[in-house]
């Protein structure tokens, strides 16, 4: 399977996430789109790890494992971010009873 397809696939997912960020107003959805972006990256990393593993061959049986660990760390960080992010969103909701980013315009110019 050509690596290109994986690249295209994950880039497509990534960009979809970006488009989501651009087009939605709900903070939570935006946040989810960001998660989507992260997953796209994860997928790409795994694909690359596989690729490099094969390229290295028997010379280095562990080749490519670092990428998978990186994915692991990304998940960890993502989890942490989610906890903080959701906390912030909830706090804002408590104060304004809305999660619409368009209403976040007290600060400008």
């Amino acid at each position, binding site marked *: 399977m050509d690596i*290109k397809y994986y690249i295209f696939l994950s*880039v497509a997912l990534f*960009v*979809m996430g970006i488009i989501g960020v651009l087009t939605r107003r709900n903070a939570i959805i935006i946040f989810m789109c960001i998660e989507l972006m992260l997953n796209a990256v994860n*997928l790409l990393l795994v694909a690359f790890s596989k*690729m490099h593993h094969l390229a290295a061959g028997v010379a280095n049986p562990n080749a490519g494992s670092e990428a998978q660990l990186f994915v692991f760390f990304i998940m960890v960080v993502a989890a942490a971010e989610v906890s903080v992010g959701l906390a912030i969103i909830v706090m804002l909701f408590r104060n304004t009873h809305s999660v619409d980013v368009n209403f976040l315009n*007290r600060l400008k110019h």
Partner: protein
Amino acid sequence: MGITQILFWALSIVSLFSALMVITSKNPVFSVLWLIITFFTISGHYILLNAQFLAVVNIIVYAGAIMVLFLFVIMLMNLSKDTEPQKSKWLKLAGAVAGGCLLLVLVAALRNTEARMTELGTGEIGLIQNLGHVLFTEYVVPFEIASILFLSAMIGAVVIGKRDVPIPVQKETEKIKEMQEEMVGPIL
């Protein structure tokens, strides 16, 4: 065109479609559900790439924990209806176009990477014992550091979570705004 290829294509199509639904569906809850489906398909890809451990973790952490958390929050704010006010057509269009351009540019750029095959279905670095071994030999420092991250996230949640006195009204921004309206003439 082996079984793996077919699986690859199928998974890819499904994941792209569900991702599309995530960003288009009006109801936040649906978005969450579609996103979960996307995660599942991605886990499928992991399995195809012999990253079994990650596949499992992905399902447990993302689909299991994180998404459920999202779901809770949405329920808690009872946004669970198509109440989300829409952005203006133009902004949506602009966003879509911009994203499209980005995709176009990236694909056009990455088109000419040299072709390297990754055959599917073999290899065992994705197995937990290998990863664990590497994690606790080479990657122990980052692993520890990650704990700092978690601590700070935890404290953050606490700090944010604590209740405080209600909000006083903001005067000062208004003042600055009006001053900017009648900005004193240029000094030069």
